[in-house]
């Protein structure tokens, strides 16, 4: 039984890991490897030029700073709003609870393209064009994070909350010292997801920035024109480099993630 479990897991592992490994392999393909009559699994030789091209961005420091900055800002805003919101939904009783939740959840189904122009006008009238806040704000609310966190919060023991209130601790104290540690895996998950999605977004940051120095890494890479020039190797190298950033973060936080996973979410 255990052997079967391991075998099936390893097959699944192969399925999920293959695209990532193949992406890395392709990022080393010299151009001629793309034309062969049978697709290659490994490059005929390691083409480091792909990486050189992907990294050869003028003022790359600015772009990295802007990407990281706007994504971090957006993640902080998202966590702040979603944690407080989820706390209210899971721990408090108030009028219109269901209605508000449903209205917030309806935002999940609004097509991003539909609200692009309106949001541009809003950001522009707030004088936030070319700023991190302008990039981050419209991307920093997510109903799916809100419901996941609400679901997760609502299953932690209410007794803790009552006890902490009896001890005279305020809500913020309770959230930061009991609720968040108990639910750290979900919090970690939505933080990573928020950061990655803002970091990787293209159209919105392109629309709200005009000055070269306010641009993000995704825009700078698109500007290199690998896809239009058919330079798939360099394109793949840039994808690997961008993902590498997160892989490194994952490895750094590996212990934390694993610990969080061990605890699990207290869903009843």
């Amino acid at each position, binding site marked *: *039984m255990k052997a079967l479990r*391991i075998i*099936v*897991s*390893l097959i*699944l*592992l192969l399925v*999920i*890991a293959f*695209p*990532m490994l193949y*992406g890395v392999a392709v990022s080393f393909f010299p151009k001629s490897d793309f034309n062969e*009559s*049978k*697709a290659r*699994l490994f490059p005929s030789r390691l083409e480091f030029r792909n990486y050189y091209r992907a990294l050869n961005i003028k003022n790359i420091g600015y772009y990295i700073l802007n990407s990281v900055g706007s994504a971090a800002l957006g993640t902080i805003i998202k966590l*702040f*709003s979603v944690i*407080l*919101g989820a706390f*209210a939904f899971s721990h*408090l*009783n*108030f009028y219109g*609870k269901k209605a*508000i939740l449903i209205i917030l959840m*309806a*935002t*999940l*189904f*609004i*097509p991003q*393209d*539909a*609200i692009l122009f*309106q949001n541009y006008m809003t950001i522009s009238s707030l004088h936030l064009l070319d700023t991190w806040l302008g990039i981050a*704000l*419209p991307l*920093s*609310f997510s109903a799916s994070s809100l419901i996941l966190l609400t*679901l997760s919060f609502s*299953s932690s023991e209410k007794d803790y909350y009552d006890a902490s209130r009896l001890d005279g601790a305020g*809500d913020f104290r309770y959230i930061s010292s009991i609720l968040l540690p108990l639910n750290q*895996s*979900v919090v970690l*998950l939505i933080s990573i*997801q928020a950061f990655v999605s803002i*970091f*990787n977004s293209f159209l919105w940051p392109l629309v709200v920035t005009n000055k070269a120095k306010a641009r993000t890494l995704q825009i700078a890479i698109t500007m290199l024109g690998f896809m239009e020039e058919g330079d798939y190797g360099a*394109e*793949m190298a840039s994808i690997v480099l961008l*993902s590498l950033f*997160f*892989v490194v973060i*994952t490895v750094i936080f590996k212990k934390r993630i*694993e610990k969080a*996973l061990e605890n*699990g*979410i207290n*869903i009843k």
Partner: protein
Amino acid sequence: MKRKECIKAYAYLLPCLILASVFFLYPFLNTLISSLLRINTSGVVLGFAGLSNYALLFKDKSFQNSILRTLLFTSLFVPLNTFLTLLASSLTARKIKGFGPVETIFFLPVAISLSGATLIFKEMFRGRVSIINRLLGLEIDWLNERFPAMLTLVFLGVFLDFGIDYILLLTSFRAIDKRVLEAAEIDGASSAQIYFHIELPLIMRMLLMTVFLAIKDALLIVAPIIILTEGGPFRSTETILFYYYIEAFKSGNRAVQNTVSTLMVLSAALVMVIYSLIFHRRDKK
């Protein structure tokens, strides 16, 4: 309900409400109202249209086609995604020695950008000579045949959602009180019985939530299609939002823009009503 608690709750909800109102609900309300108006491509309001924009939309064969394609994608994607993530999380729920890295790898797709993953799949499934064909001994021109192109999209969809669903389910499994499982074991329950009668019901809430998010992702799929298939071959992967993308966003058709967005949100309401009914029944039990 205490008044003080109400005020406190509204205060905590304020950041969410502000962000959602300014950047989602206000623009959507505009869309909803506009869907009842005649507006030309330059944005000038020409008059009241009633429901004629909707009539025009449903008459459009391409829109009808896009609904069918979206339903096909959803009916393929949601079961496969649910099955695979549930399988992976069930298998690894109980710690296996040395499987720490495996869990991390299952989680890694979260870190890869949507466009990056899509481009990798485009390369993996490129034509008859693709690496997938070579490894599996197939002769399929994946992106140039109708059903295979749809399947490629489904596989990509699963890859994109795998990481987050896996973690959500895994952590739910691990949160189950071990004493309950041990007690069942002592009572002589088989591991299949334990799984189906104790574990699965206990994670059902989270499972339903991941299914809900999968349905949402399936109904709204567009960005991978733009990069992977452009709705092709021969309009076989044109989903509702892809139709929306080319007609409303790129061709500036305001009627399509406003009606489709409104309909998407209405369908969301429908899905949520069904969901709250399911949750309600479960809670009653």
